[in-house]
Each structure stands twice: as structure tokens, then as C-alpha cells.
């Protein structure tokens, strides 16, 4: 654990040195470009942008429900050629929350350092594909979040407090990008073993470290594959203790780690006059073994030796989704070229022996799957109408179906 932390620290220190080597290459070109840019008209470098949306859901029981609205203004400031500030205030269901506020400093052409509250640079969905004007469906893919887990848990997206170093490396015809980050890290709910990554105040002395490496193998950038990893201690430093085999244990050493693989393929294919895209992300979230109190009425599979008030479970959660979309954007027909068809398959496997995971009728855990079939009609590049059928199959085999619609306006 310590050595991994040291390694990351070393990597942080090495990155600027590495990138300095390659930065000399196109500095002449940059100077020319900068001169051109400084001749641009207007001085205001502050930009207010973002999105607003409104949506509804329809299902057999609740009938029509105008259930979704939100407003997410994004404030961007270019302070100098090297300093940049970005922030977003999001009001997903009318409640305002500072989503992120981050200062970035460009060290050179290839590397920058960021600090503040930032979207988690883990996987691609949270940082790159989640904003309402980018998400082509009226709903999000299945993620291990409050829809499926108890109590507002933020497992794999949201924001972290910390520092990041990000950069890019030219690689012949390919490209490589990396982000390394240090943050307050996850916190453990010691009543049930749930993890929350949105930890604004650190709950222990240990910092979380993580990062993502993105590889774009082809010169036309049509494919990006990303690998992410993060790790930290989740237990609180002053956590309660319990006894196993007359040995005292506490939660302060309970660690949490996660890995993700994301993929993005986007290509315009003139032969079929269309743009096709395949996107997906797989995530696995692991928490070290620990014992938790057995909630009332729950029959556990693994009780503590000699103590039936405590139980343990393999605290690993996995989710993935894969999505395909097709838009005949190169057609002349004004209407058809704005239509995008979408398919998405989602899967979530919660820890099957946890008291809080979905169970089948025999009390066993399993997999929740969901199929989304969508249609998007674009009015411009960031404004459009989204419709989707969402069919969920629960662990007990129960099916629930919904029709969703959302109008998103990017501004």
C-alpha cells in the first residue's frame, strides 16, 4: 500500500520531466499560433455555458410522471494562457449543488496540473459522457448509485477533492493520455460496508491515489480505450471496534480499490452516409473483507465465528454497459440526418451476500440487467429530444418497463 503510494508520488514527479523532453518539438508552431490568437477580437475570456432539461416517464402503474428537470450552468474562465478555471453548478432535481470547481495550470504543451473539486478522472462516463447534452439517452446507464444502492451512495462517479496531473504523449500515429490523481478517498459506512467516493472531508489520514491511461491507437482518433485504477483506505480513523475470535478489530484498515475499462469508437462512414458509435465501460469495485452488524430479519451466509450478530460478505460490485448508436448524419434529407438510433445493454452485479443487495425469491443475490432502446432527434449539436424504452430485469426475475422522454437544451 505504502509502496504504491510512493510509486504514484514518484510518477507525479517524473511526469513533468518526461513531457519536457517532447515539448520542444512543436513550440515554434505554438508561438505562431499564439500570435494569431492574440489578434482575435474581443477580450472577455469568461464563458457561461451548460444545459437545461425537462423530461417525463411513463409506466403501467405510475402512468405519466413529469419526473425529471434540471439546470447545469458551467462557468469557464481563461485567466491566462496557462491558467484556467472551470466550475459547474448542477440542479438535477431543483437542488443546487456545486458539481465541480477546478483550477488548471498548464505546465507546458503536454502536461497540466489541476486542483479543487473535480469530476472523478476514473473511467470515461463521469468525466466525459455524463453531461445532459452529451448523454444521448434520457436516462443514464446503470451505475451503482442511489437508484440501486441504499442511502445516496456515490460509488463510481461524482466529484472528488484533490489534485490531478494530466498529460498527453504523441506516439507516432497513435496518442496516449494519462491522468494521475490524489484525493481524500473513499469513506466506508461501517454499518453496512458501502463505500462513498464523494468524500469532501477526509475521514482518515490516508489519501486515495488513482489514474487513467487512454490509448488512441489510430491516427484518425476513431478509437480510444481507457484503463483506470484507484485505491485507498476507506475506513474511518476513529471507527468502532468489534471482536472476532477474541481478537479486537476495527475498520481503520479497510481499503477500497476499483478498476475500469472504457471504450469509445466513433467513425463517420461516408459509404452508409452515417456516423456510428460504440461506447462502453466496465467497472469493478472491491472493498477489503470486514464484519458488519446483521440487520434485523436478515439471514446471512457467513456469520462471525461464535457471534451471530456480525456477518461478512465478498464486497465486490461490478457493472458494465455497452452502447451502439447510428446516425445517418451525412444524408441530405433534413429530417433523417438528425435522427440517431441507440441501443444500450446494462448490467449490475451487487455483492450477492450483502444485506442490502437485490435478492431473488430464495434470498440469493444476482444480476440486474437493463436494455435501453432509444431515439434522439437533434435540433443542433447539443440540443435535442430523446426518447427511450427502458426494460429492467431484476434479480428475482421481475420485469419493469418504462418509456422515457427528455428535452435537453445545451447553451
Amino acid at each position, binding site marked *: 500500500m505504502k509502496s504504491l503510494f510512493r510509486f504514484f508520488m514518484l510518477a507525479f514527479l517524473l511526469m513533468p520531466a518526461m513531457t519536457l*523532453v517532447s515539448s520542444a*518539438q512543436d513550440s515554434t508552431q505554438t508561438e505562431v499560433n499564439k500570435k494569431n490568437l492574440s489578434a*482575435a477580437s474581443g477580450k472577455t475570456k*469568461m464563458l457561461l455555458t451548460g444545459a437545461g432539461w425537462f423530461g417525463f416517464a411513463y409506466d403501467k402503474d405510475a402512468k405519466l410522471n413529469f419526473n425529471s428537470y434540471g439546470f447545469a450552468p458551467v462557468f469557464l474562465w*481563461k485567466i491566462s494562457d496557462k491558467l484556467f478555471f*472551470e466550475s459547474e453548478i448542477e440542479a438535477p432535481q431543483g437542488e443546487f449543488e456545486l458539481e465541480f470547481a477546478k483550477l488548471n495550470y498548464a505546465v507546458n504543451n503536454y502536461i497540466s496540473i489541476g486542483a479543487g473539486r473535480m469530476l472523478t478522472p476514473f473511467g470515461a462516463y463521469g468525466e466525459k459522457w455524463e453531461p445532459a447534452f452529451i448523454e444521448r439517452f434520457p436516462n443514464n446507464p446503470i451505475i451503482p448509485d442511489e437508484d440501486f444502492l441504499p442511502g445516496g451512495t456515490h460509488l463510481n462517479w461524482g466529484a472528488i477533492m484533490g489534485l490531478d496531473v494530466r498529460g*498527453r504523449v504523441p506516439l507516432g500515429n497513435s496518442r496516449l493520455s494519462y491522468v494521475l490523481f490524489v484525493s481524500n478517498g473513499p469513506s466506508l459506512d461501517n454499518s453496512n460496508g458501502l463505500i462513498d467516493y464523494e468524500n469532501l472531508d477526509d475521514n482518515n489520514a490516508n489519501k486515495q491515489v488513482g489514474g487513467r491511461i487512454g490509448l488512441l491507437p489510430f491516427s484518425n482518433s476513431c478509437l480510444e480505450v481507457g484503463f483506470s485504477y484507484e485505491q485507498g483506505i476507506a475506513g474511518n480513523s476513529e471507527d468502532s471496534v468489534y471482536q472476532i475470535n477474541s481478537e479486537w478489530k476495527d475498520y481503520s484498515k479497510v481499503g477500497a480499490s476499483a478498476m475500469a475499462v472504457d471504450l469509445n469508437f466513433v467513425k463517420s462512414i461516408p459509404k452508409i452516409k452515417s456516423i456510428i458509435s460504440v461506447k462502453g465501460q466496465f467497472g469493478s469495485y472491491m472493498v477489503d473483507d470486514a464484519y458488519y452488524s446483521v440487520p434485523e430479519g436478515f439471514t446471512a451466509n457467513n456469520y462471525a465465528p461464535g457471534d451471530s450478530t456480525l456477518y461478512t460478505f465478498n464486497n465486490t460490485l461490478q457493472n458494465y454497459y455497452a452502447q451502439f448508436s447510428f446516425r445517418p448524419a451525412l444524408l441530405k434529407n433534413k429530417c433523417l440526418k438528425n435522427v440517431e438510433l441507440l441501443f444500450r445493454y446494462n448490467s449490475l452485479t451487487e455483492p450477492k451476500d450483502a444485506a442490502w443487495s437485490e435478492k431473488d425469491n430464495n434470498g440469493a443475490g444476482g444480476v440486474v440487467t437493463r436494455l435501453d432502446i432509444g431515439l434522439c432527434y437533434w435540433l443542433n449539436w447539443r440540443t435535442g429530444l430523446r426518447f427511450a424504452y427502458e426494460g429492467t430485469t431484476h434479480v428475482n426475475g421481475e420485469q419493469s418497463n418504462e418509456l422515457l422522454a427528455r428535452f435537453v437544451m445545451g447553451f
Partner: protein
Amino acid sequence: MKKITSLSITIIFSIGILLFINGCAATEKVTAKSGAQIWGENCLRCHNAPDPVDYSDAQWETVGMHMKQRVNNLTEAEINKVVEFLQSAN
């Protein structure tokens, strides 16, 4: 712990590769791309390709800085080319 060790090795290995390839410059094929071409290939990977007329010249500079962070795989020279293209077409 085993899992952690193997993951650390993977990360160290990846950074090793990164160190190695850091020396490799972009090929002529990549550096010769125009701003319009980079915009057409890169700016539609997450959202649709943005419309140049949506922002003023100064605002495009700010967007350029923002996207440099988010996209994270374009060099400053490439982002500048895209910004110049968008400024010329707005």
C-alpha cells in the same frame, strides 16, 4: 494484496511504456492535420462536433483550454489549430 501487487505492476509497466514512447514524436501524418480535420475527427467523439457559429473568437479560446483538459490527448498546437479553424468559420 496479490491483486493490488499485480495491478501496481501493470501500472508501473504502463508508465514504463509511457516513458519509452515519450521519445516518439508524432508522425508527419498526424502533425500535418489541419484544424478542420482535427475538429472533424476528434470533436465528435464524445458530443456532436460543435458548430463554429456558437461562440465568439474569444470564447473559442476559452473552450479550447477547457477541451484540452477534457479530451486530454491533443497537444497545444493541435488545440490551437482547431480553435483557429473555429474562429475562422464563426
